[in-house]
């Protein structure tokens, strides 16, 4: 009989722990920077959705293209109209996973470096990426942060030759999000 209680105990404890497995935010940051001799272009999106399963290390990110804010309105229009074709491909989506879960312990406060691998879909074209990410765990928050590079050509983003000097072939992307528990 005692054993039954033990089993039920584990079961109950396990389920409690599992309730807190998904962390998320709808106000994550995603920004990019294009640097050429002619022009610096940067844009930021502060309403990116991040959701992460702390047990499996799975991470999904979804960013609406039209939410990227540029310094110049005309750049923003060109970004959506000419390059991203945002009416056809409204979102950039990342679906990936922490490579080695033994590198992180989301139950313990601390700063963990880990590689995240997955598929990033931009402009309707997906490509596998592996990035170095930092996870800061503490106080009921997980802050995830990474920087990586995206080549326009990899996602079939065509830049006309007349603007090759204004728009970089490789764009620096930075991502940061403060995730909290998803309560059902």
């Amino acid at each position, binding site marked *: 009989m005692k*054993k*039954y209680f033990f*089993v039920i105990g*584990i*079961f109950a404890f*396990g*389920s409690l722990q*599992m309730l807190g*497995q*998904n962390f*998320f935010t*709808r106000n994550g*940051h995603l*920004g990019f920077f294009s640097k050429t001799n002619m022009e610096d272009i*940067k*844009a*930021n999106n*502060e309403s990116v*959705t991040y*959701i*992460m*399963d702390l*047990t*499996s290390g*799975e*991470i*999904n990110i*979804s960013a*609406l293209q*039209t939410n990227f*804010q*540029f*310094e*110049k*309105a*005309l750049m*923003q*229009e060109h970004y*959506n*109209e*000419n390059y991203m*074709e*945002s*009416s056809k491909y*409204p*979102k950039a*989506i990342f*679906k990936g996973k922490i490579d080695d879960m033994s590198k992180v312990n989301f139950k313990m406060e601390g700063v963990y470096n880990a590689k995240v691998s997955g598929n990033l879909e931009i402009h309707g074209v997906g490509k596998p990426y592996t990035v170095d990410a930092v996870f800061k765990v503490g106080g009921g928050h997980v802050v995830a942060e990474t920087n990586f590079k995206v080549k326009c050509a990899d996602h079939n983003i065509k830049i*006309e030759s007349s603007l090759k000097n204004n728009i970089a072939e490789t764009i620096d992307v930075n991502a*940061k999000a*403060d995730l909290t528990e*998803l309560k059902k």
Partner: protein
Amino acid sequence: MRQILVCCIALFSGFSWCQPENGDDLLSLLGDPDPVIYSTATFKSTRVINGQSIENVAGGVMDFRVSHRFGTFNSGIHKMFGLDLASMRLAFEYGLSDRVMVGLGRSNVNEEVDAFTKIKIFKQVESGSNKMPFSLSYFASIVMRGTEWAEPERENYFTSRLYYCHQLLLARKFNDQLSIQISPTFVHRNLVQTKADYHDIYALGYGGRYKLSRRLAVNAEYFQILGNRLPSINTNSLSLGVDLETGGHVFQLHVTNSSSMNEKGFITETTGEWGKGDIQFGFNISRVFTIKEKRPPIKQ
């Protein structure tokens, strides 16, 4: 045996708990509705050709516009087929917000100064939970004619110099290439030439654009006067043109039978006839300057 069974069940339940509930798509756990995506760039510029398009300059952006209409093609070799003559309008137009723009222009046709505002009422939704099939804007302008009084000996009022125009702009972007706009228009003239002339004129504008490439589009525009409220010498304004975009500039090149570049002018004062060769070459040049930068929100 029973213990093993219980352990198996516990393990199995634990295993099933670990699985995300909707297969491998974590995002669907949030149950967020499809985002609303508004149509953008229904037209390249704030003008179809002469008339207003559904587009506004963005908030914080100044648009400096230079417009020219040369003389008519049928004016002959002595006027270089119209190129020796020119009507022009210079204007500064500014976006107070993404929805509201204002403008101030000066035209040498009848020494006119015009002031206007254009307000977006609602925007076409391309995809999302609430479908809106078209965009609607309201445009209002006031024009002051600066020429000497026709009869200076009688008592003339300042208000007699004023003209008003109200317009609804109803546009739909059918796809990346094709956009169509319909613009019901009302023009009020405080002073008209004769007693028989009407003060109020109604018109229906039709505009369209077809985008050929990222930087090139063709446009057409027609204003139909409703009812027989204008003298027979007046004609409907018809214009055909192309939009060329290079970075911050938009060049609009066109042929038209109107020489005025404000609404009350090209709608109610056009007398040129296409059939007789009263066709004028013209252009609008638009250069935008970002006055107030949309600063990216500061990261916390």
